[in-house]
């Protein structure tokens, strides 16, 4: 615990002390200017990292936020005499609002379309800054005198310290945010947007909030940018700077505060690197040797495929050769950026910091923070008294895909406290039924009622809020998160501290309680000892159990288990049955889709058989198994092999 504090926090404190102390030693105004730029870029990149790193979307609008923030602060200061603190807040809020407005439509899109939308926004902003001459002075540029800070004029050194202080505050706030439920939600929605919705966390709203927050940081940094340079031109905030900012995030390493600051350092110092022939030659030579060694090693050990090993070698070789051939490296600036970025993206996808973090973790084994004792299960998952009333009722539910009637008028009632089995041949509509009930698909017709209240169809969030939880046939775990985090992120009603307080670091108590609750659920499914294992590294059986624990974190009224035994080995199937029985003891109603008839017979009070999207039989398992319609659906039309169907009842008594 203490070791962790010293190493992790100590390194952070050391970074800021060193940064802050530099002006005491180095007096050159040029160096000071670079350091100030470093601090400003650090804030911009931390903001950009929210979308690029945490949300996993290529965001090309951060440069526009920087520009807008700069102009807002500049105009507020020159025209209305606003001071530095207020200008910072104004720029930050303005860009948060703009970010939210842009995100609302743009984040309904994924990947390329999102990148296109943000790129267009950047172009639009550049145009607007250029053309709104009455406000921005257009292409001539806007002259700004640095306002006073609480009545004091700031010299370059004081202003640098201000920037460093703000970077430190942003760093702290960001760390608090990312180690809270927000951070988990960001992580989760990148791994599986569908599951994030299904646990009621909400992919879309977190994306919008994250984008707006990152934009706000960009805006605040813009204010500092304006007051640092004292002169703004629209053509500063265009495509090229966008690429440079992306370079910073990717080079430094995504999802890392250290990565953002190291990236900022590289981006701020790059022009200097290029201006000296000697330094650049040495740099590119070293890069080439590193790529060569790493590539050859990867190839020999057969760890990397040919392209990933060779491409960085070729790129860095070009870089090194260019450094000797080109007479003026400044002219080739963009090509040099491109080659560096290319090598890093292909060869070092986690960035410098991702690489360093892995190495450091091997070097210093720091124990993760201790876990609290598990909370009592009754507090986390209170026992419901089954009242035998109708919990779920489907009336004439149907769902069509094009011309295919996947569900064709299904009536179904599920009584509270029971396990209701759902079986049927492949393609009979079981999965579609589950997907409609859980809100993934909107029904094409019919009605869906939970405890008598109509459910809005087609919204995973609405279903989750109403008390429906589900697992997925093809697991939808948050693979990059630990087992504990997978459960914590789904905890219902555990996260009440509002965002501003979370940023101030006041979410710790809630975090502690959440861990205890999640641990109780992990123990419930027998994964108490795996709390710290990444979900993707769990065995397949454990992944299935973890998905159930996550669903239970919703304290559901209705739990839908979509083939919980699929792909499991025999011992795991037995464990799974045991878990399901224990869930029943807690009074939770379940709908169980299952291929193994023996599992269904053993667990379910009632079984519904679907075929071609219709209910063909319903009743206790023993009765359903003898139903001729069911036998036909499974064994086929009575053709030459009818002997089987005829002799069916005899060997099929009692389950194992």
């Amino acid at each position, binding site marked *: 615990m203490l070791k962790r504090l010293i190493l992790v926090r100590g390194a952070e404190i050391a970074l800021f002390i060193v940064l802050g102390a530099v002006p005491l030693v180095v007096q050159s105004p040029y160096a000071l200017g670079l350091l100030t730029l470093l601090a400003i870029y650090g804030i911009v990149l931390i903001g950009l990292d929210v979308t690029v790193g945490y949300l996993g979307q290529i965001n090309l609008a951060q440069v526009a936020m920087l520009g807008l923030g700069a102009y807002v602060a500049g105009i507020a200061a020159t025209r209305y005499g606003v001071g530095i603190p207020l200008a910072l807040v104004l720029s930050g809020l303005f860009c948060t609002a703009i970010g939210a407005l842009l995100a609302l439509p743009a984040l309904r899109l994924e990947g390329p379309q999102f990148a296109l939308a943000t790129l267009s926004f950047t172009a639009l902003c550049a145009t607007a800054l250029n053309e709104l001459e009455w406000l921005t002075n257009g292409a001539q540029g806007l002259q700004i005198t640095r306002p006073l800070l609480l009545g004091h004029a700031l010299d370059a050194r004081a202003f640098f310290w201000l920037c460093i202080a703000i970077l430190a505050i942003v760093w702290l706030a960001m760390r608090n945010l990312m180690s809270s439920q927000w951070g988990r939600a960001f992580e989760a929605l990148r791994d599986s947007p569908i599951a994030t919705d299904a646990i009621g966390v909400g992919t879309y709203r977190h994306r919008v909030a994250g984008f707006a927050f990152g934009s706000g940081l960009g805006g605040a940094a813009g204010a500092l940018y304006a007051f640092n340079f004292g002169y703004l031109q629209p053509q500063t905030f265009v495509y090229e700077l966008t690429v440079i900012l992306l370079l910073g995030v990717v080079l430094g390493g995504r999802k890392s505060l250290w990565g953002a600051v190291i990236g900022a350092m590289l981006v701020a110092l790059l022009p200097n690197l290029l201006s000296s022939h000697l330094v650049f030659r040495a740099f590119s030579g070293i890069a080439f040797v590193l790529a060569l060694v790493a590539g050859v090693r990867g190839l020999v050990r057969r760890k990397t495929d040919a392209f990933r090993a060779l491409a960085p070698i070729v790129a860095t070789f070009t870089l090194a050769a260019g450094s000797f051939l080109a007479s003026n490296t400044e002219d080739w600036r963009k090509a040099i950026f491109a080659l560096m970025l290319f090598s890093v993206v292909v060869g070092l996808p986690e960035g410098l910091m991702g690489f360093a973090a892995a190495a450091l973790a091997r070097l210093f084994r720091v124990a993760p923070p201790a876990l609290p004792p598990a909370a009592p299960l009754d507090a986390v998952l209170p026992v419901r008294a089954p009242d035998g009333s109708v919990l779920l009722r489907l009336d004439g539910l149907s769902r069509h895909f094009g011309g295919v009637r996947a569900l064709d008028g299904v009536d179904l009632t599920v009584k509270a406290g029971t396990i209701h089995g759902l079986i049927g041949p492949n393609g009979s509509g079981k999965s579609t039924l589950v997907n409609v009930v859980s809100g993934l698909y909107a029904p094409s017709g019919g009605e869906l009622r939970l405890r008598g209240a109509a459910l809005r169809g087609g919204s995973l969030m609405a279903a989750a809020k109403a008390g429906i939880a589900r697992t997925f046939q093809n697991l939808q775990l948050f693979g990059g998160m630990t087992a504990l985090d997978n459960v914590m992120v789904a905890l219902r009603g555990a996260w009440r501290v509002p965002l501003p307080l979370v940023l101030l670091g006041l979410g710790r108590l809630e975090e502690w309680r959440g861990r205890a609750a999640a641990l109780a659920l992990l123990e419930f499914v027998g994964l108490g000892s795996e709390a710290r294992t990444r979900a993707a590294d769990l065995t397949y059986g454990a992944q299935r159990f973890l998905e159930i624990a996550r669903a239970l974190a919703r304290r559901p009224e209705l739990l839908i288990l979509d083939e919980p035994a*699929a792909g499991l080995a025999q011992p795991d199937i037995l464990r799974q049955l045991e878990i399901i029985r224990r869930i029943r003891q807690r009074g939770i109603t379940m709908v169980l889709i299952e291929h193994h008839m023996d599992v269904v017979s053993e667990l379910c009070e009632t079984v519904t058989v679907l075929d071609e999207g219709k209910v063909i039989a319903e009743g206790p398992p023993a009765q359903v198994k003898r139903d001729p319609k069911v036998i036909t659906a499974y064994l*086929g039309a009575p*053709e030459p*092999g009818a002997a*089987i169907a005829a002799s069916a009842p005899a060997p099929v008594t009692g389950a194992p």
Partner: protein
Amino acid sequence: MLTVTDLHAGYGLSEVLVGTSLEVKPGTIVALIGANGAGKTTTMRAISGTITPTRGEVRLGGSRVDGLGAARIARLGLAHSPEGRKVFGPLSTEDNLLLGGFRWLPHFFGFRRQARQALERVYDLFPRLAERRAQLAGTLSGGEQQMLAIGRALMAQPKIMLLDEPSMGLAPVIVQEVFRTIRRLKAEGMTMLLVEQFASAALAVADHVYVMERGRVAVSGTPEDLRRDPRVLAAYLG
């Protein structure tokens, strides 16, 4: 024709196949039956290269094909009509069929004539497809799509055909029609590996049957043997 030895395959961490072995002799129909989730479809996908086996061997006419990738295996003469039919919805029926013969594109100067002949043969087998030749495949009925999927596989003039659940989601009448076609193809000497949920239908056409259970072959034999085997029933209704 096709020999599968100790095949292991799965999706991500879940290993669905744990040592499946089977053999298909030229000119015969081999059926693969078993409960849902037993690994029948995964076996087919691992053979045709849609998924790469993690262990084991697949031999087609004596040479190893595992790990080659679906496209190359298909060009070697293995036609796989996948589960769920997977017709190309936005293309017409005839285009779907012509694409089935894609593997011959680089081979013939007379590709067009060759394709025309193969097409006539498929239309002869499925007159319904001839009627719907210009219709988009996505708008065909389930049964027609199944005929299209089989026809498309036939267009490749394959050495062996893999048919995965040709009866899935179809009305009994249509299922019978599909199986009539399978019998006819067998009479013409086609080699086939057939996955079928409807055990009775599969047993009726097959020369040899493998029953799968939890990722490997549990029982195998002639249909006559299996009709009397209680384990076959157990595989279905547990």
